[in-house]
């Protein structure tokens, strides 16, 4: 049974100084740069429907409501809880509780924006309307699709989300409670030792650094408990590299070597026998079984069914199979329907399904949408920037920021080295990221 969720991980931005150091006795860092000095409002009676009230949907609503006067803006999302997904790994490492990542969607719906607690079930871009799962039809002049993605646990034979936390079964993604249950399983593994398996699916996924981080965090937990010598950690990469950005992949390879984390390449989880604690991997040489004592299952991720069944999806190319939305990678505008945009996880663009991507996609899409209403053009471009504070142990992280072309995009060149394990980067993750994320939801960062 798939579980739907919305966009993820967050921090900085490309090119310039947009983080800050300061605070009373504290020094904190926060990804910034915004449209708080927003241009004058554009008068319109346009109907804008935002499908999805996660990070991307709420941030879009906040910015649109600030830039448009008289528009009828509607958010569609059935879920009342808002999840701060960049915090899930912290919950699964026992550093935070589930309440740390759980908020209320209603707290972030901007004044003047209508929130309908129904989800988009059908997109009709030719007829310019959306039908909800309650059967309501909403015509629109502009549509922003921000539905997030679907965790396809069903694609792993034998997987049972209800058993996360038991029998060494972990999976950080399913919910805040599942993340906490994963911590229970990992912690009990750290007491005893044994074999732990990590990995990622071959589909596009949220924050591709997260599965790597979790192996590092498990390694650190074992060391702190004095049981590292009794444990074997194995990371199963779905292809021949640990990360899609070559320079980062090499750095992680060296760190894994240093920490004694073994790597299997071209191994993708296809089935699991929870009772026997055996995971089966798809490999070039055929299925391969690995026994485990703890496993972090990362499910395949796809566009939600309503999107996959719509004309909005890519028709050909690498993003077609899982139904991601066909948008121009620089403007986030749909390639065939000019009044449709997609932001966040559901956008069919390379890399970046993170909150950092959302932070930089949303202002671009909004600028194009507003420009179209105002009868002008926008030169705003999204360069694929995304970022991941790649935790390498409790207390240290590497700030990894890159773009579509695999270029590193350090926010503080010459100050914070991108591939260095630093406390300052850890501090950003633990202290500044969530406030920056929340400010982003309000359109303030």
């Amino acid at each position, binding site marked *: 049974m798939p579980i739907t969720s919305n966009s993820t991980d967050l921090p900085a931005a490309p090119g310039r100084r947009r983080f800050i150091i*300061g605070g009373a006795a*504290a020094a904190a860092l*926060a990804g910034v740069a915004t449209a*708080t000095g927003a241009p004058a409002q554009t008068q319109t009676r346009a109907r804008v429907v935002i499908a999805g009230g996660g990070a991307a949907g709420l941030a879009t609503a906040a910015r649109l409501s600030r830039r448009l006067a008289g528009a009828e803006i509607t958010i569609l999302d059935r879920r009342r809880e808002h999840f701060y997904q960049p915090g899930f790994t912290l919950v699964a490492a026992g550093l935070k509780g589930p309440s740390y990542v759980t908020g209320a969607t209603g707290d972030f719906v901007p004044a003047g924006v209508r929130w309908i607690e129904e989800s988009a079930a059908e997109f009709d871009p030719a007829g310019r309307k959306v039908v909800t799962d309650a059967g309501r039809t909403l015509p629109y002049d502009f549509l922003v699709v921000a539905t997030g993605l679907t965790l396809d646990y069903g694609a792993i034979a034998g997987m049972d989300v209800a058993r996360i936390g038991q029998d060494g079964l972990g999976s950080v993604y399913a919910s805040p409670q599942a993340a906490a249950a994963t911590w229970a399983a990992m912690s009990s593994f750290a007491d005893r030792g044994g074999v732990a398996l990590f990995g990622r699916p071959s589909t596009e996924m949220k924050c591709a650094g997260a599965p790597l981080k979790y192996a590092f965090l498990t390694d650190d937990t074992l060391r702190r408990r004095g049981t590292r010598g009794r444990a074997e950690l194995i990371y199963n990469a779905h292809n021949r590299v640990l990360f899609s950005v070559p320079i980062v992949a090499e750095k992680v390879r060296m760190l894994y070597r240093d920490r004694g984390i073994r790597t299997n390449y071209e191994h993708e989880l296809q089935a699991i026998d929870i009772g026997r604690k055996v995971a089966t991997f798809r490999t070039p040489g055929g299925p391969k079984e690995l026994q485990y004592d703890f496993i972090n299952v990362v499910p395949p991720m796809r566009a939600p069914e309503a999107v996959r069944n719509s004309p909005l999806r890519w028709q050909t190319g690498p993003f077609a199979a899982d139904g991601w939305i066909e948008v121009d990678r620089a403007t986030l505008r749909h390639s065939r329907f000019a009044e449709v945009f997609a932001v966040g996880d559901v956008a069919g663009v390379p890399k970046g399904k993170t909150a950092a991507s959302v932070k*930089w996609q949303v202002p671009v899409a909004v600028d194009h949408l507003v420009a179209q209403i105002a009868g002008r053009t926008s030169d705003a471009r999204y360069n694929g920037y995304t970022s991941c504070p790649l935790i390498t142990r409790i207390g240290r992280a590497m700030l990894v920021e890159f773009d579509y072309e695999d270029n590193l995009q350090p926010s503080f060149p010459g100050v914070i080295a991108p591939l260095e394990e630093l406390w300052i980067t850890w501090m950003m993750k633990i202290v500044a990221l969530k*406030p920056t994320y929340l400010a982003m939801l*309000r359109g303030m960062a």
Partner: protein
Amino acid sequence: MKELDVATFLAVFQEMLGPLLWALIALAAAATVLFVWVMLRDRGLRPRRLVWAEVAGLAGGIAAVLFMLAVTQSQLADIGGPVDWVLVAVIFVAGGVGTVVAAYGVLGALRHLA
């Protein structure tokens, strides 16, 4: 994509600290006002009082560093590259200077230590 501005900075800190942000700003402002008032009243700094304020500042600086380590669930061994040491220094100085100003003001207001 715009540059950093004060409103953004404030928005992030407001999300981070909530009402505590304004309490801290008020506290810092009150300490500064008290310090300036004492200095104007005494027509200058009193060396003996300043020394004691500096002793308090030393403790304040150390407390600030320990506080940041605690809230980030870190330990001194996590301090890695040079920028980490710069950050520790910034935290120490911020905590230290804040405490010196506050301690001098309070001691002066109480007319302690001449």
